[in-house]
């Protein structure tokens, strides 16, 4: 995740219709910062993330990362790594293979690559877990392994879709600290979908509030936390 220059994400007038639901996004996620994407369930948080990752193609508008237009690019060609809430690892492959697929998609690994895998595992606190199967790990350990894969991928943008939602509250804290450390080391751009107000306060430099398929508010975190005039936001922050 060594971004040479901050890769900001710009979502310009992006329109998308999924079934009967309409979305219209226009927002900016500053480079080298952590942006929290929040909002009620069903508001379109994950849809925004899918658009940035390339799993949805906009009907109109433009998405650019680090200044270059990625709207038409396949997910694999975008400079992003992903961490979902669950199923980040192929359950039938050991950790080294799962992480190795992040380096080379046909798993042609050099000894240097293997060393990097071990170092990444070490960094997230899973040193020596190369041969472990995902099923033998706890939920928190599996998410750590997903972070290790993001580390070896060295993409300037990291997208997280409620990465800690399935974990116990105590574990969330330590995972959030790990995410923060990795972010400071690599200076990457992070977008994290969350409906945990505590996480927003702890992690974010910047935040978006999504409601009814639109960006209702985007602001620096200090401003975001003070706003009382956005419907729904106060309830969200007080929870």
């Amino acid at each position: 995740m060594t971004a040479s220059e901050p890769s900001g994400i710009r979502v310009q007038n992006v329109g998308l219709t999924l079934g009967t639901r309409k979305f219209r996004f226009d927002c900016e996620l500053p480079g080298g910062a952590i942006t929290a994407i929040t909002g009620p369930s069903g508001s379109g948080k994950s849809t925004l993330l899918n658009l940035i990752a390339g799993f949805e193609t906009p009907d109109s508008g433009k998405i650019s990362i680090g200044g270059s237009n990625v709207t038409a690019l396949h997910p694999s060609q975008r400079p992003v790594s992903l961490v979902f809430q669950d199923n980040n690892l192929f359950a039938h492959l050991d950790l080294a293979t799962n992480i190795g697929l992040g380096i080379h998609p046909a798993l042609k690994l050099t000894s240097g690559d293997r060393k990097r895998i071990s170092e990444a595992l070490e960094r997230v606190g899973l040193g020596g877990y190369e041969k472990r199967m995902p099923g033998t790990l706890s939920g928190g350990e599996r998410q750590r392994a997903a972070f290790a894969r993001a580390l070896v991928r060295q993409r300037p943008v990291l997208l997280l879709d409620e990465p800690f939602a399935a974990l116990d509250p105590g574990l969330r804290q330590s995972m959030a600290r790990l995410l923060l450390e990795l972010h400071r080391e690599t200076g990457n751009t992070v977008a994290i979908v969350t409906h945990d107000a505590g996480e927003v306060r702890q992690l974010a430099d910047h935040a978006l509030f999504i409601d009814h398929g639109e960006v209702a508010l985007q602001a620096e975190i200090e401003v975001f936390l003070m706003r009382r005039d956005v419907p729904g936001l106060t309830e969200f922050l007080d929870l």
Partner: protein
Amino acid sequence: MLTKAERQRGYAGGGVVFAGITLFIALAVIALLFFDSGDTGRPLFDAYVWRILRFTLLQAGLSTLLSVALALPLALALARQPKFPGRIWIIRLMAVPMGLPVLIGALGLIGIWGRTGVLNSGLAMIGVSDPVSIYGLSGILIAHVFFNLPLACRLLLAGLERLPPEYWRLSASLGLPSFSVFRFVEWPAVKPLLAGIAGLVFMLCATSFTLVLVLGGGPAATTLEVAIYQSLRFDFDPARAISLSLLQIAVTASVLALMALLPTPGDDNAATGRSARRFDGGSSAARFWDGIFIVLAVLFLCLPLVSILVAGVKADFARLLTTPVFWKAVWTSVWIALMAAMISLAAAITIINARAALADSRKPGLTARSFSALLASLSSLVLLVPPVVIGTGWFLLLRPYGEVSRFAPLLVVMINAMTALPFVMRVLSPAFAIHRQRTARQATNLGVFGFTRLRLIDLPVLKTPLATALSFAMALSLGDLGAVALFGSEDLVTLPWLVYSRLGSYRTADADGFALILALLCLGLTIAGTAGQRDRKDERG
């Protein structure tokens, strides 16, 4: 938490059904073993018998190989192209061969692949002089693939659909090339299913009777089941029927034993047609090759069905529908199917209740547990001894007591009920288990018992699975030729037997007309059954 009376009724019912089914099968086998065929002057297993065994295993092995090897790329293509036009209908089409009477399927295949069929006429026109033959080994293989490729494909597709949707996003995000997707995602998902599916298809092909009867025949292309039938019906050579039957039981027993060691492919969530979004099927090359494969498969499955329809509507229905023998056959078929289905359902419900009663006791002893296991394995016992073998045994058993045709309808009913039992059990037992789990405590707590409980609590929920099971069992029995073939006569004419005998006397137009009627009847029943099942799923959300 059953009352003592309920539990005792459960035990007693289980005992009666268990004794009944075991006796019905065991008596047939004992009759075979102890039949005094006199000295035939040849060993029990002569060269002829071995040759038939070899062919049975060869055709079953090749059929399995072809069915599974073709089903795999088809399932992969269908999974990769979730937006393929009419995909949901293609998946539904793959359920049709399972509901179609085998004899009718064979007629359809002859219409396409036969000497004067569409395909060979086309090939002859472009100058290919040595067309594909629907008779003999190649024909049996084509027919077995027609019936089993869809089954294997649906089970494989279900395995692929069970994968978490994140896997496809990860693959796309990591930029896995298609071979990596196959190696790291698809193959690990289907590999554990393959052995079980292959076992199931092998079992079906090794015991396939009707297809081999119609498309095979002759010493070069005869399987054990058909040879048993021929030795009894044409050669009247009980000694040979006995040795063939014993071999048949040995074959099914070994396959069943092997299958018990393999993981069973779960049909419970067979392909629903709902699918995860895929990001790797969009390239034009992937779309092109997947499309070609899917279209070829659809043609292969669809054309014989179209052929049944086209050939059928040409028949002179005004005359066919006024022939007395037709109405007699309809009456006999429906009567037999209804009786067989009711007996099958009653046996299944009794088994389920008995197992529930056994499970209900706080500390089931070894006896209770082994009795429960025995009850559960009853359906396999039915598979162990194929209908033709049971029929042969009872034929020999009853012959001293007069004309066998007098007992024939009863035997056909019983054999069809047995054949349907595994299917009925598979529909009913999960439905009953879920229902009991949801309602038993409340009903017991409220003190709702007996008829009130049946009317207010059990029937409203269970009527759908009961209707599904009934329609499946009836369709199975309506389309069956195996049991009737042994006993069919002037006095016992069912619809499949009517089609088969018209075919034998070269009145193909009549056969096609009757075949269409029978196909519509069976498919109608199957659709009615599955439609109920779908509603139930929607209800659950």
